[in-house]
Structures are given as structure tokens and as C-alpha cells.
């Protein structure tokens, strides 16, 4: 049984004390109603570093382009007031290789195509506008692909896991499930590239409406799995000790 509380060290704030006594009186004795018992029973929610080895070993990520970001400085649309983003995941940067290669070809393409005899009959003004239009298209292609990679994220908070998907220009889907609804977490790393660069796909089975969440091609999938398992255990511990929000 982990030593969760040291008397006097973790004093819940007055507002927390009030919310505990008004919302969850079942199983609490008179001392807890006064707020004193909360210190003994562990009424305050623990920080992630207290129960998670993954969080203890990691430093806060400041790089906004990171695909594996620990406690990033981001907020999201459906975030609740006291909910904390602990992990933000994206597809590994290497998954962008194909479109980046296509984009580089788009950039250097006009240099070679201009040498073709066909373009000698085209007036200069048309060739000029064609080049501008081509590079404009290249910029648009890059922006679209980058936005798709940057904003399609998987978020793990202290309460939920969230899957944010933007399928096209105007269609988005945000799916979330509470940590205590998670039934199974498995990951797979297949292929030489994925093994070499340590990224893979997590499958999370839940008891919620959406039965399965897939975190595709995320970095360090074994660490993500370990962290989610730690969160599940912490949720169970909170329920046992009456620290549920």
C-alpha cells in the first residue's frame, strides 16, 4: 500500500474540502465531514509524478512539434476545469516522409520541366504565371499535410483519453473515454522502420460507446501503454480510498 498521505504535507484547499463533504458523504466519518479526515484518507488528487514512473522519468516537453509531448502547454476544446493534459501524442514524424518527398519533388520539378521543348512555344508571361501557380500549389499542399499531422492528436489526461481526428477540411471527430472505462491496452510495433525508430500502434479497448481507440504510429508505444496502465491503477486506488472527483 503506497504511502499516499503524510499528515500536514498535503492539505486540501478549502474549496476541495467543501466539494468532498457535499458530494461524497458515503463512507465518511464525522471527522471527514469537518475536513480533517481528508488528510488521513487522501482526499486530494495526487500529481502524476507521485504515481507514475513514466512521468518521473520524463521532463516536460517544450517543443511544439514533438510527437511525444509530456505535460505540454496545450489546452483542448472539451477540457474540464481541473483536468490536466499529461501526454500529447502525434504520429511519428517519419510518417510524414512520403508527402515531404512529394513536396520536395514539387519544388524542384519546374527546374527540370522548364528544359522541355514544349515550354519554348509558351509565351513568357504564361510560363511566369504557371511557375507562380505551381509554387502556390506546393505551399498549399505542404500546409494541408502539416495541419493534418499537427492537429490529429491523441491526448491522455488524468481523467480521460481523447482522440482528435480531422478527416478533411471541414470534418472533425473528437472521441473520449474515461480512464476507468479502459479494459485493455495493447500495442504493436511491426516492421524494420518502426522497430528502428520505436513507434507503433496502440489499441485501447473500452467499455464506453466507442469500443476501441487506436493511437496510430505513436512514438514509444511501450511507455504510453505503461503510463495508461499506471493511470488505470491510480483510478482504482482513488475509488478505494474515496478520492474520486
Amino acid at each position: 500500500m503506497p504511502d499516499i498521505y503524510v499528515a500536514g504535507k498535503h492539505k486540501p484547499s478549502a474549496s476541495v474540502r467543501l466539494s468532498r463533504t457535499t458530494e461524497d458523504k458515503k463512507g465518511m466519518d464525522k471527522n471527514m465531514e469537518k475536513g480533517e479526515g481528508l488528510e488521513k484518507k487522501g482526499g486530494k488528487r495526487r500529481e502524476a509524478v507521485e504515481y507514475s514512473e513514466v512521468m518521473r522519468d520524463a521532463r516536460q516537453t517544450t517543443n511544439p512539434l514533438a510527437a511525444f509531448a509530456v505535460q505540454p502547454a496545450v489546452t483542448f476544446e472539451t477540457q474540464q476545469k481541473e483536468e490536466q493534459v499529461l501526454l500529447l501524442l502525434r504520429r511519428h514524424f517519419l510518417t510524414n516522409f512520403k508527402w515531404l518527398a512529394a513536396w520536395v519533388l514539387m519544388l524542384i520539378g519546374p527546374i527540370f520541366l522548364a528544359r522541355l521543348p514544349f515550354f519554348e512555344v509558351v509565351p513568357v508571361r504564361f510560363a511566369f504565371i504557371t511557375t507562380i501557380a505551381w509554387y502556390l500549389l506546393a505551399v498549399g499542399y505542404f500546409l494541408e499535410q502539416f495541419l493534418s499531422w499537427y492537429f490529429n492528436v491523441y491526448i491522455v489526461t488524468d481523467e480521460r483519453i481523447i482522440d482528435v481526428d480531422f478527416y478533411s477540411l471541414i470534418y472533425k471527430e473528437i472521441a473520449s473515454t474515461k480512464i476507468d472505462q479502459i479494459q485493455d491496452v495493447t500495442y504493436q510495433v511491426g516492421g524494420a522502420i518502426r522497430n528502428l525508430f520505436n513507434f507503433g500502434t496502440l489499441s485501447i479497448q473500452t467499455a464506453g460507446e466507442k469500443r476501441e481507440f487506436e493511437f496510430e504510429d505513436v512514438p514509444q508505444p511501450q511507455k504510453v501503454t505503461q503510463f495508461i496502465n499506471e493511470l488505470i491503477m491510480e483510478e482504482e486506488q482513488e475509488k478505494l480510498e474515496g478520492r474520486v472527483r
Partner: protein
Amino acid sequence: MNEVPIVRFLEGLNIGTFWMVIKFIYLLGIGTYLLFSLVMIRQVTEMTKTLNGSLNLPLKAIAWIHLAVAIGAWLLALMVL
């Protein structure tokens, strides 16, 4: 003898008219891209509203600059071609 309209058109077509048609196609194409740029503004706004991070402001600025460049390209095509 009655000529088929397409034959009359082809006989009347000269090189200047041909490039006018090509100019119209260019303006149509760049105009379509301009609409795409407008949609991208909307997309970036929606995305930054969903996920609020440190790159939100630069991305919004890039989207607006992209739109301005698309408008500039369309106007340039109108004047130059």
C-alpha cells in the same frame, strides 16, 4: 451551304483568341485555389479552437498570408496574361 457552328468557330479562331481562352482557364484555376485558401482559413480557425497550443498564432498568420498571396497571384494573372 450552311456551315456547322464549330467549323465557323474554328475558322474564326486566331492565336490571340486561343491565348484569351487559356487566360480564362488560368483565372478559373487560380480562382478555385483562392476558394481553397479561404476554406483553409476556416479550417485553421476550427483546428486552433480544438487544440490550443503555442503554434496557433503563427499558423493563423501563415493561413492569412497564404490567402493574401493567392489573391495576389490571381490579380497578377489578370493583369499580366
